[in-house]
């Protein structure tokens, strides 16, 4: 089960006299099995960034977003997660022609974050297996 996350950067905005600072928001977060459960993601997001709104999964900076992605990875005991910005995803779409090239976008343009604990677990598992 490989995790993939598409995010977008939202510039600061004024919404009806309310200043909304710039943020990084999760657009889609999914594995090979489908989209990850929203309530589960919200719970993790709140633990990483207590200011996360109930409606959107947003983070004040890219490091927090990456921290969130890694936490999800750890919770699900996944080896890694690939992050890609909407802009990079769109560049990938622009050159993709079919299912194979669509799947390849994340490997080609995405940033890999590894879950070291799962990796170690993997090595140990192999050791004990042999």
């Amino acid at each position, binding site marked *: 089960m490989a995790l993939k996350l*598409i995010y*977008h950067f939202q510039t600061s*905005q004024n*919404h*009806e006299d309310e200043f909304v600072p710039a943020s990084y928001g999760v*657009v*889609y977060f*999914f*594995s*090979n*099995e*489908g*989209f990850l459960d929203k309530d589960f993601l919200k719970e993790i997001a709140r633990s990483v960034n207590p200011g996360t709104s109930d409606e959107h999964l947003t983070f004040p900076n890219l490091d927090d977003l990456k921290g969130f992605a890694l936490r999800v990875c750890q919770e699900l005991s996944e080896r890694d997660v690939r992050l890609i910005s*909407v*802009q990079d*995803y*769109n560049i990938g*779409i*622009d050159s*993709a*022609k*079919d*299912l194979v*090239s*669509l*799947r390849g976008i994340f490997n080609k343009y995405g940033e890999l974050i590894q879950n070291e604990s799962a990796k170690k677990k993997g090595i140990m598992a192999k050791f004990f297996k042999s």
Partner: protein
Amino acid sequence: MTYLENSKTFDPLRPGEQWFYYWKTSAVLWESQILQFPKDEIVFLPLYWGLHAESVTNWDFGQTLPERDLLRLHEILTQHGRKYCWIIPLSPAPFFPNGGISASAARSLSLDKNGVQLAVLDHEMNLNKIFSFFEPKVFGAYAGFLKEFGHFLRKNKIKSPVWGSELFYYQDGKNHSFFDDQSLAFEQGFSRFLKALHSENLEISDAKSEKHLKQKYTDEVKKLFTTTAEETLGSTWMGVQKIVILGASPKDTILRSIPSGKSQLEYAKDLFYQLTNSFFISSALLTAEEKKDLLSSMIVENFGHKEIQQKYNLEPPQSYNQGLSQDFVPYSVIDLFGSTSRGSFTSTKLLSYLHSNLKSLYTLQAEFPFHQEWIDANQARIKLFNGAELHRRTFSQLLKLFMMGQRILLDRTGLSEDLEKKLQIFLVENNIKIQSVNFITSIEICELGEGVLIIFQGDRLNENPQAELFWRQIFKFFDLSQPEVTMDPDVFSVWKIRATSPHELSYLNVRRLNLYNPTSYKKIVTIRTHKHFAFMKMIDPSRANAKSTPSGVDVEILPQGKIALDFGHYEDT
């Protein structure tokens, strides 16, 4: 070969709903392909208009390439006595490369609200990128194509109907038009639009007004495409159909690209949402693997040949109260009217009540088609109107329906002062007795002959924990005669009705309940007939079984199973 058999063997040239992709094969194969359509089925030809571009200003209908030879296509169809319709997209079409736009005009990629490029996997898993209709070159090319196509039809005296189609995808509980776009081309067009509005003193003052003006701009550009098609194609123009393309949303593109794919359950949810919301669907993007088993049956049984004929006005709508026929027709008990009222139906808990108690027995209608055929065909259904969406004409029509003996529910929240006054005058002039009740909200019950008009204050139901109790009382008042069905939310059902045959005269009518289990688990459905219905038989069980019980029927449906049950409806003695 039946449609079902066809969908099982899967032909990429005939991707579903009687469409024929003439452009996907050599013209020499058109005849043999067309002959594979059942003779009584009308053939729909989606026009890949971008394909006909020979250059920026020249359009080819067969003079250069045989695959663009629409006259030859017309001749083959007529020679074999086949009826057909052209379908011209009025928005980007996800089943065509570039969304149907010619290469010279496909400049600006279409973006969704998250800024994600719209791209769709087709039935052969090719990625079709969607280009914006807000790019000025697109309208130029589109208008040029329509002009030449109209000329081609007149020159060759082709009178086959042309339907416009606005195409949608379904995501997060809403249908989104492929026309809607957030691309640079849209933003540039919008700023030109704002400049033009500046002279009319209309400006953006806040985020809400920006959203409103963007919608206004989108609607105006959309109208430009539609009116151009209507004016150019003259008498052959039939109107606009709104079609939701299954598997076309940005989320679907991701789901369909991962190894597990989009599940039959997810497709079933989409399909039944469209059925409840009176939208027509196309399964043109789905692969043979996706269309296997249950999904194929659900499409054929609910969006099949007969439904297509009715949707495209090739058959009059069938009535279930003015002379039922021997064929089953869809059955529901209430129509909810209003294009923007879904929020109010949700906040007043009406939708959750209906979903729990009258699942698949209600429909949401964006438009109110007030004409005799429609009135006759839908007389037995209760009709609910939202006061905020009514204007003088629709309000008068609502009162007419009441006087004709129909059952009307009116939420007076948001009803204009003018219409409120009109309502009071109507009630006084017709000497209608009003029974006022205060139960959770204020209710006025007016009766005239068989007609019932219930006026209530809907805003007092908003987020009210007793709202469902209110709806229970309302539907109890209407005394609906309907079997009670208890089932898992992931089991889907459709009710149909037909007249009795000579050996079934003890019944008033016959109701059919179609049940589908698109999940991977066994499901149990319990039907209580409440002394009004007698279980007659089960039809075409597939991985399912039904057992008669003293109170009704118990059904067991295995994963991907389906069954239909017939019930005779009789009066309680």
